[in-house]
């Protein structure tokens, strides 16, 4: 009787994509948060000076 098909490479590719996309999305959230906080601080300073 034949064993399961050799599909290990596809499984690795699938999980690599899943965890990479999740990591990239998390990084994008952090980067956007930092940029917006900087923008907010700058705008508040400008507002104060006015």
């Amino acid at each position: 009787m034949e064993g399961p098909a050799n599909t290990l490479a596809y499984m690795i590719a699938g999980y690599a994509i899943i965890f990479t996309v999740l990591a990239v999305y998390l990084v994008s959230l952090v980067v956007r948060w930092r940029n917006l906080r900087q923008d907010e601080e700058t705008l508040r300073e400008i507002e104060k000076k006015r």
Partner: protein
Amino acid sequence: MDAKPRWLSVLDVVTALMLTAATIMVFFYAPMEAVMGPVQKVFYYHVAHAWVGMLSFIVAGIAGIAYLRTKNIKWDIVGLATVELGMVFMLVGIVTGSIWARPIWNTWWTWDPRLTTTTIMELIYAAYLMLRQGIEDPERRARFGAVYAILGVVSVPLTFFSIRIFRTIHPVVIGGGDPGADGSFDMTPKMLQTFLFSLLAFTVLYADLMWHRIRLGRLAERVEQLKLRLSQ
């Protein structure tokens, strides 16, 4: 101002633990499928991503209705957050499905009813994000977003039921499938437990990411208001 809530930190930890547990279950608890081999393990997270994608778009429709009823901008922030997350999850669902299909269907892609309706759904929400960018007035943008999300949600049941209505080669996980479906398998109790736990873990991940994305949306809203004030 806007310090991270303690409960959000708790949810972050719970999410990380649940995802770790789900991954351990996928690789070390669920048995290897007898015919497809290791690639079948992609199924657990593939379905979980597709589920969260559909859930996200349903939440967008609900947020759209809530915005039109209340005119409260917080619902627009919720709508945008959930559509962005839905896009990410559904995209991963499509790509992992394609990776699974290559050894099982012997092709990366086929215009099967499920694959076609999923692609249409993804494109509908890609258009939502692009069209929003073109509207500067926040109130008009929110109104447009709400109406679009309510209309767009029709694509969710169409996608979900496509494999139950039309002839398809896509396997049906819950309920009876088309006899022509290629790649279906009977789940053992351990497979079913892993599958259900993965669905739960990704639903918790969705809630966690939503909370973070809504906070980001509120911050973006504050920055936009500041810009508007300064430009006057």
